[in-house]
């Protein structure tokens, strides 16, 4: 299979580079930054309109490279929210041109949303949502906590899985099929406090791009999406302090230059003090409980010379929850990335990254001096190398490799009396994941943009550890022991990626895409919201890697002088090697978890409608997704197709933002969604003198429909040279809809001898208030 792909590759390469003309070509290259803060701008465009439309886009580090024939040109440099810069140049040799764009956000209505921004949506590949952090910050959310991961759930194809939870499903995928990267480091549990808050402090984030299954070849490891978050670098000109004081959480960010114009740093911290409110309760159990989280984002960068920049970024977050004399959980993520950008010449850019990511959790039973603590972690060590090559204005090549070592501890049992590892827990697992890729973005013609790439990934599961041979009844027949570093099993997967945009005119385009993705780590979860005790397990000799093939077709249109945007995109995804627990599985199993799992196939399909109004006092969008996700696993639901838990037929989001005056903005969100699929009893019987529920089909029922309105307002109090402040108010679930969080089937206490269903609904009319200040 490998050789077949290589042969196909060569003709493509020849075809695309054959068109080099005879005239001398020169390259302009450099970095595009914000003139105020020095922050690099990702995805800014440098356009040339005459003699022919041509251009380049800045990469994740603000670097661009544009090759043109010798001559005189007028350059237009554009980026959403910034004034377009125009420059006249005479191109007679290669030269470096760094560009600083002026921020235009201060003059709200006057911002002419440049044609490049929409052009971007029209021309670029399918299934991508590029999220404006500033826009998301206006959306009212639960407890007033701006939450990027919850805000993206208002976009088509991205759905939340449970009220308040940060777990989400992209195009019908499971919650573990999303690759969440923070400055290239994977984050395994992107939520705080059992899912009610997300791990990301939006103050620290500069850019957020979501790929809905259409991720280019640089991204791998997860089937349904890649969420690429880039942290702010820090103001290179002067120091700035931002604070936010809220009812439940407070944040502080400090940024500034290390050496003016050469290097800067950014640090932000956040803590919740929900536990402070617990002191007001008379119940001792509640009063002495602990419930808090905190996180810190830190980044520093330094320009070593003309062509080299060094970055170091890190995240550290911790959650602690314990009931006095009861159960306690302590978990957190930590990531660190060290990066070196090197500009080899005007056409070649390189980035080398060393990445560390750690997710660990500890669960404990506090009331007994004896007993056990359960400790688990997943740790990744990664080296990534990427080259970007811009041979001409019609090609942008990305190629590189990455190699990761996974160190997984699914559950270690520690004896509390002696603090020793008892050796009774689950075995540690080790794996080595590699990938090599090449991708090109090719402006094949004025009316055709093609994005094509191939990623080739491998996964080897290693000793030290025991691996099992199981028979058809999933019983262990043999145990094989491997020494440290010995390879037990290796998998290979070619992952082609393809997307084409047919530009009908500068306002309309049609996009198609085909992607194949492979995933080697799986989250075994026993419920929908995601729990710290969910286990990440690697593929092994019995658990094969999951793969997905996705195709999509979409239509995009800008209307009314680009003030409106509409799009329709349909997708179909076919999934292989999907696992699920068998009925009545022993969840706290032994090391051979595969004896409790069954595997089969899945399919997800849907259509996403989206309309957005971009300009004027009133802006906002409506998104509607109609979809279905199903699985078919032998041994479950009598071997028939059954609806997956995260299936949601209708999902509607309406977001509006209205600038009442230059100081006051009002925003609101209304969501409506079909309830999750669930397995409920259809009857009951008595065994052992107890009432036992009788289940028929898996996921044959639905939770009730969910809908909710949130309203928020932001008022600018002060706007002076050195100080700015604003007040944010909000109300979550403004009409107090009792949305079902869970059902509990139980014997009735009111009417003994009968059974009843009790619905728990959580948040109704939650107010929030926060004061945000900026010191410059």
């Amino acid at each position: 299979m490998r050789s077949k792909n290589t042969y196909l590759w060569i003709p493509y390469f020849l075809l695309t580079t054959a068109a080099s003309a005879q005239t001398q070509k020169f390259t302009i290259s450099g970095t595009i930054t914000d003139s105020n803060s020095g922050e690099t701008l990702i995805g800014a465009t440098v356009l040339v309109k005459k003699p022919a439309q041509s251009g380049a886009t800045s990469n994740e580090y603000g670097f661009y490279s544009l090759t043109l024939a010798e001559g005189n040109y007028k350059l237009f440099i554009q980026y959403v929210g910034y004034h377009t810069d125009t420059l006249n140049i005479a191109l007679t040799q290669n030269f470096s041109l760094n560009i600083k764009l002026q921020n235009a956000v201060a003059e709200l209505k006057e911002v002419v949303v440049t044609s490049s921004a929409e052009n971007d949506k029209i021309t670029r590949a399918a299934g991508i949502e590029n999220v404006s952090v500033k826009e998301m910050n206006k959306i009212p959310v639960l407890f007033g906590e701006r939450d990027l991961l919850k805000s993206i759930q208002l976009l088509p194809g991205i759905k939340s899985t449970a009220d308040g939870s940060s777990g989400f499903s992209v195009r019908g995928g499971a919650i573990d099929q999303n690759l969440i990267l923070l400055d290239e480091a994977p984050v395994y549990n992107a939520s705080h406090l059992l899912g009610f808050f997300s791990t990301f402090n939006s103050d620290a984030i500069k850019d957020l791009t979501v790929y809905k299954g259409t991720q280019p070849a640089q991204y791998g490891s997860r089937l349904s999406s890649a969420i690429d978050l880039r942290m702010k670098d820090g103001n290179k000109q002067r120091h700035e302090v931002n604070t936010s004081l809220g009812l439940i959480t407070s944040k502080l960010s400090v940024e500034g230059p290390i050496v003016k114009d050469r290097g800067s740093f950014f640090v932000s911290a956040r803590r919740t003090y929900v536990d402070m409110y617990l002191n007001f309760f008379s119940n001792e159990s509640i009063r002495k409980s602990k419930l808090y989280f905190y996180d810190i984002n830190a980044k520093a960068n330094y320009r070593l010379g003309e062509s080299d920049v060094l970055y170091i970024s890190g995240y550290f977050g911790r959650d602690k929850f314990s009931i006095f004399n009861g159960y306690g959980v302590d978990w957190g993520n930590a990531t660190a990335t060290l990066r070196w950008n090197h500009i080899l010449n005007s056409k070649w850019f390189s980035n080398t990254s060393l990445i560390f990511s750690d997710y660990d959790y500890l669960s404990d039973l506090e009331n007994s001096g004896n007993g056990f603590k359960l400790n688990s972690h997943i740790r990744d060590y990664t080296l990534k190398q990427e080259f970007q090559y811009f041979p001409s204005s019609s090609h942008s090549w990305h190629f590189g490799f990455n190699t990761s070592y996974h160190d997984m501890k699914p559950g270690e049992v520690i004896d509390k009396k002696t603090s020793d590892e008892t050796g009774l827990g689950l075995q540690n697992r080790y794996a080595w994941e590699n990938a090599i890729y090449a991708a090109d973005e090719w402006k094949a013609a004025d009316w055709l943009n093609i994005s094509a790439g191939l990623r080739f990934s491998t996964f080897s599961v290693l000793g030290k550890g025991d691996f099992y041979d199981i028979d058809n009844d999933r019983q262990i027949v043999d145990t094989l022991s491997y020494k440290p570093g010995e390879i037990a099993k290796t998998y290979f997967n070619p992952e082609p990626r393809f997307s084409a945009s047919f530009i009908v005119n500068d306002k309309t385009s049609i996009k198609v895409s085909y992607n194949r993705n492979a995933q080697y780590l799986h989250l075994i979860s026993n419920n929908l919201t995601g729990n710290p005790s969910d286990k990440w397990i690697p593929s092994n000799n019995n658990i094969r890697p999951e793969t997905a093939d996705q195709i999509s077709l979409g239509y995009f249109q800008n209307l009314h002088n680009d003030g409106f945007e509409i799009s329709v995109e349909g997708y179909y995804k076919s999934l292989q090697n999907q696992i699920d627990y068998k009925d009545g599985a022993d969840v706290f199993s032994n090391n051979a978890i595969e004896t409790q799992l069954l595997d089969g196939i899945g399919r997800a399909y849907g259509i996403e409608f989206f309309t957005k109004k971009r300009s004027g006092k009133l802006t906002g969008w409506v998104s509607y997704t109609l979809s279905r996700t199903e699985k078919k696993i032998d041994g479950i639901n009598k071997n028939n197709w059954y609806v997956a838990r995260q299936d949601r037929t209708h999902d509607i989001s309406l977001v509006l933002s209205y600038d009442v005056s230059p100081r006051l903005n009002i925003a609101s969100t209304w969501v409506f969604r079909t309830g999750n699929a669930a397995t409920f009893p259809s009857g009951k019987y008595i065994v052992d003198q107890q009432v036992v529920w009788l289940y028929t089909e898996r996921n044959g029922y639905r939770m009730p429909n969910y809908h909710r309105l949130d309203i928020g307002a932001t008022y600018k109090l002060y706007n002076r040279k050195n100080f700015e402040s604003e007040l944010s108010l909000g109300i979550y679930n403004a009409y107090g809809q009792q949305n079902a969080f869970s059902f509990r089937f139980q014997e009735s206490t009111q009417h003994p001898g009968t059974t009843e269903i009790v619905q728990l609904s959580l948040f109704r009319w939650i107010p929030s208030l926060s004061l945000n200040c900026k010191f410059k």
Partner: protein
Amino acid sequence: MDTFSIAQLQIQISMSRNKNILIAILITIVFSSCEKVIDYNLKGVEPAVVIEGAVTNQTGPYFVIVSNSQHFKDSNQYVTINNATVIISDDVGNVDTLSLILDGLYQTKTTVGVEARTYTLSVFLEGKIYTSVCKMPYQVELDTLFAEGDPTTDSGFALTPVYEDPAGVTNFYRFNAFEGSDHIPLIRVRNDKSTNGTRVRQPVGFNNYYNEGDSATLEMMCIDEQVYQYLFGLSETINTGLNAPASPGNPISNITGGCLGYFSAHTIQKKSLLIH
């Protein structure tokens, strides 16, 4: 269950109560959530036959209950079946046809429960046959029973049986506990995966039911593997609410023919003590 599972189960039990407390805390703080009984339309299902029977090493008679499942909205009573023919036979040639003594309750006449003997249950009902085969394990002696508690904490007393698990055999156990004369409605089963051939001294986990001065009785039963799997699955099915497994299923009965319930041949020993 092995020690790791016990640790997980300890945490899981506490978690199910305590996750509810966490939610209660969160919601109380924001004074705005509620629980209410709702009327949800659950689809009906054809009544399924439920058979529950056991043969023990105590003196007989032994019993088999035959009933039907019911709709969720019905009141919780056995929907009894009185027209079944229930036969228990063993591997030494005895065949016993049980007689109906009460609604749905069938009693043996001549069956004797003996260790290592294999018993077959056959139920004939409306043209269908339901059968189960179960071999009674050898009894593992319950040496002592004691209760350990920490009077400073509020965590009750840990009722702990002590026994010697035989090496070379896979053993499964079930524990039934009584507080006074009240049966504690919890299913506790164990395997010997991590305790094979050792002297086992582990609490059975009914802690919260016992206070100073209570009289506690523990029944220790030696069951076979299929009954162990059934009871384990049954305990999972009864567990619902916030901590319910997302994909619950019906426990796998050890009776063939397409019915619910189980048939067990097991040994029983009882010990009592007073908590102090």
